[in-house]
């Protein structure tokens, strides 16, 4: 009998150890580090209390970075989800080539972001890029002169768009799964009543795909809060700090400027943001889903 009680734990221990070793112990450790001025190398350091956290909200640099994250969040979540729904609606019916389009639109999501970032750097290059060349051929001289990545007012929006370009296929596929799980007879009933495409979309498709909307908005929100690869590759956070994200700031603070305590404090702030956003969204979305169904 005693043997039976221990047995489940034998099955669980490897997984528990992994989670403890990579998540729980490091997380507690990071709270401790964030209260120090440790540089990551020396054996001596001082506890500085919440000084690192106060610095986050007082320095101009961090305020800019937080603003950037907000811009990424608003732009990417809105554009990617609207476009994702649009493409999913176009793909919802059976037709020749459906699979081809779905596969092509999804393709960029399986390619590593480092490659995507460099490809788009080339595409947008002011001298040899395809986009400026194309715009100038089309006679849009003014647009062709835009410095997509070097102009500090434009660069962040460019990165948002490239991010949408890469990940819209994922949103589309999730929305498509949501749409296809809707009972077809509802649409038939609707067309017997003489409803058009638009009415069907607003009255049936959109309300009934609420669960996939929840998932997509959470996935894109958390993704944009953690955004790192694309701005790091395309601009390195520049010009100045114009495209720098929180995650990039964590990296540079800790590993470039050797301020482990401060970097860890920012990373914990990032954790809190992710936590808050996902909780808020879950609550709002649950309520809305209840109201609809």
């Amino acid at each position, binding site marked *: 009998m005693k043997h039976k009680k221990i047995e489940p734990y034998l099955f669980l221990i490897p997984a528990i150890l992994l989670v403890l070793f990579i998540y729980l112990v490091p997380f507690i450790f990071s709270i401790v580090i964030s209260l120090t001025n440790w540089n990551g190398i020396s054996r001596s350091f001082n506890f500085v209390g919440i000084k690192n956290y106060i610095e986050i909200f007082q320095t101009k640099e961090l305020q800019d970075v937080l603003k950037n994250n907000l811009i990424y969040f608003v732009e990417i979540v809105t554009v990617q989800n609207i476009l994702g729904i649009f493409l999913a609606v176009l793909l919802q019916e059976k037709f020749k080539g459906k699979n081809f389009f779905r596969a092509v639109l999804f393709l960029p999501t399986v390619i590593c972001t480092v*490659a995507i970032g460099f490809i788009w750097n080339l595409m947008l290059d002011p001298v040899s890029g395809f986009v400026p060349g194309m715009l100038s051929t089309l006679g849009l001289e003014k647009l062709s002169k835009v410095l997509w990545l070097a102009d500090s007012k434009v660069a962040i929006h460019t990165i948002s768009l490239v991010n949408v370009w890469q990940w819209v296929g994922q949103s589309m596929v999730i929305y498509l799964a949501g749409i296809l799980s809707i009972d077809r007879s509802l649409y038939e009933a609707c067309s017997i009543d003489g409803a058009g495409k638009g009415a069907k979309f607003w009255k049936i498709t959109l309300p009934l795909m609420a669960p996939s909307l929840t998932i997509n908005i959470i996935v894109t929100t958390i993704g944009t809060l953690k955004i790192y690869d694309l701005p790091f590759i395309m601009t390195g956070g520049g010009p100045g700090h114009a495209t720098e994200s929180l995650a990039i700031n964590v990296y540079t603070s800790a590993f470039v400027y050797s301020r482990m305590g401060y970097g860890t404090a920012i990373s914990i702030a990032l954790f809190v943001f992710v936590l808050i956003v996902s909780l808020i969204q879950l609550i709002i979305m649950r309520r809305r889903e209840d109201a609809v169904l």
Partner: protein
Amino acid sequence: MSSVTKAIPYQEPKEKQKSKKDAYSVVNYIILSAFSLIALVPFFILVIVSLKTRSDFMKHPLSLPSTLNFQNYVTVFTRSSIVRSFLNSAVITAGSLVLELFVGTLASYAITKMNFKRAGFFAALFLIPMIFPVQTITIPVYVIYKNLGLLNSYIGMIIIYAAIGIPMVVFMMTSFMKTIPFQISESAKIDGASHFVIYARLIMPLMKPVISTLTVICGLTAWNDFYLPQIMLTKTTLKTLPLKIYDFFGQYTSDWTLICTCIVYVIVPIIILYCFLQRNIIDGVAAGAVKG
């Protein structure tokens, strides 16, 4: 009564309905083709530039290559140790997949099939990591790894990716294992089979579809990741493919033809795999997102 009166005007203009439907699908095709073009053009440009000589690219950056030139492919292959990076990526990805799938399915089996008191607690425990951004644990893990000598090692990377994958594996596995009738494992139990035998012989073979889904999701995460290798792998011989592109760009900043060639080398294997498995990959990602 009302359904009859309404059904008549719906059936009458059949011709009109049909032509309207055709027009709709033409518009559909045009919009989808435009979006597909936008998705594909960057890849065409990439390949075109990789086939140009440097001087050709400098003089006519946007034209098609004057002659097809494969010299870049030879140059990158001999100069960049890209094969080594490919092997590094493969070892780390495969290793983490084996570890997380083995450990995660064992835990899921315990949670769903072993009928013990704290099963619910552990099911919740394994979900907690999902809320941690990887950046929050990277610095402390880096410090721990440094002290344990796990920086610049395959095993260190394998462990961290396996831990990152555990929540997803446990979540999907438990929800699928729950659907397997209890009688199957119970009757084997009565026949005297141990839990490990039931797990390995009875349950795991039924899990093949879930395993392939998880292989896609977790495999892509590890294969494409840039953040962790950038911090944990500083030795040239251990660099993974995304890191290789980044380094190569640093070395040959001014020569787009070589950079593009390097990128082509890195993404072609994934694109080939994608062509064969696109349906499974897309369905896997959709299923993963819906379950997660």
